[in-house]
């Protein structure tokens, strides 16, 4: 963390890591897709529609994991004033929003044949929609400030406030009755998924995780560059402008 405080060192590290990470992502996706689409059985109740799980569940997990990343980054901004914390949060937000959108859309596509509806306003679905709106709110707030360094703290506070939604999403299916079924994998008494379906799911989850690592590193690098360009332009403008 301390070594990474220097953006230049971070850029160097990212450049070394990225080719390996992209390679691992490609392999994980190839394995996950093959397992999920061809090498796994149909479910005894849901038939082949269970294959939607292999894209829906990892997207939903990432939606929450990316938000957790933003919340930790927010702590980094507020408590330690880490120079890369706001860069990390800002780079993660659009990726998290995209994963959340995917979880919502693939969930609807799964819900229609199984439940008989695209959407219901139960606690789980609604809280995930709220997560998506929080992502949009964070992105909008960042854009409301001209200078990134001024946006950092207000956005960090808002993202910590929004983090209260994470346990609500996770436990919504236990606290209230919902149309969405309770957790199958992340539960105290072990997964309720047969290994023939659990393995493809975990491989796909790994693929999504690696994909996020790649996208996040690249988006952070872009953000660092963007801020450099900005400060260079500001400096150029002040040098050209007559001194006041």
């Amino acid at each position, binding site marked *: 963390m301390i070594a990474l405080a220097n953006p230049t060192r971070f850029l160097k590290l990212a450049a070394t890591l990225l080719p390996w990470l992209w390679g691992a992502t490609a392999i994980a996706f190839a394995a996950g897709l093959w397992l999920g689409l061809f090498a796994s059985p149909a479910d*005894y109740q849901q038939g082949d529609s269970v294959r939607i799980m292999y894209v829906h569940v990892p997207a939903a997990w990432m939606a929450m994991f990316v938000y957790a990343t933003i919340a930790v980054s927010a*702590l980094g901004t507020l*408590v330690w004033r880490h120079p890369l914390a706001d860069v990390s949060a800002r780079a993660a937000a659009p990726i998290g929003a995209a994963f959340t959108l995917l979880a919502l859309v693939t969930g609807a596509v799964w819900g229609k044949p*199984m439940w008989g509806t695209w959407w219901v306003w139960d*606690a789980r679905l609604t809280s995930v929609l709220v997560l998506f709106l929080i992502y949009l709110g964070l992105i909008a707030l960042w854009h409301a400030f001209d200078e990134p360094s001024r946006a950092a703290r207000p956005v960090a506070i808002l993202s910590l406030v929004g983090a*209260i939604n994470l346990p609500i999403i996770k436990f919504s299916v236990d606290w*209230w*009755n919902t149309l969405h079924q309770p957790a199958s994998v992340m539960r105290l008494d072990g997964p309720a998924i047969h290994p023939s379906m659990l393995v493809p799911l975990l491989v796909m989850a790994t693929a999504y995780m690696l994909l996020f690592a790649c996208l996040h590193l690249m988006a952070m690098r872009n953000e660092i560059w963007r801020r450099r360009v900005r400060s260079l332009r500001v400096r150029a403008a002040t040098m050209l402008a007559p001194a006041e």
Partner: protein
Amino acid sequence: MTRKQRRLTLIAAAGVVLASAIGLMLVAFQDSIVFFNSPSEVAEREVPPGERFRLGGLVAENSVMHGEGTEVRFAVTDTVSEIEVTYSGLLPDLFREGQGVVAEGALDGNGLFVADTVLARHDENYMPREVADALKAQGHWMDEAEESYGSGGAQTQEGGY
């Protein structure tokens, strides 16, 4: 160092306050956040005829009767109480006896629930057909099912199955 600790404490304190506030709100709105009511709750609350609500539970075994066209009658049970439901329309593919179901509609004067929407609710167990058949053949099916509704069992008082 102390400044960092002070900031951290401040954030933690604000977090505790916020979490308690949200927690209280959620407890207060408990009844409206719940997606459906079990037959027992409906009996207990004596929901008047004509008031719309969602009825959830399991489709009782041997209760499904198909009438003319798409008309269907079945009973929704939470293993304690049962409510008869009538519905006309397309049923979801997962609709079958012993499966979870959520019906939306209202009671008529005779205690019959007239539904205009029927949604299927499945449990969190996933397995291939062969495994399900093997479990049934070995007679382990019921313990498995009970186990899976174990989490639902905890909800029974709160209006799960």
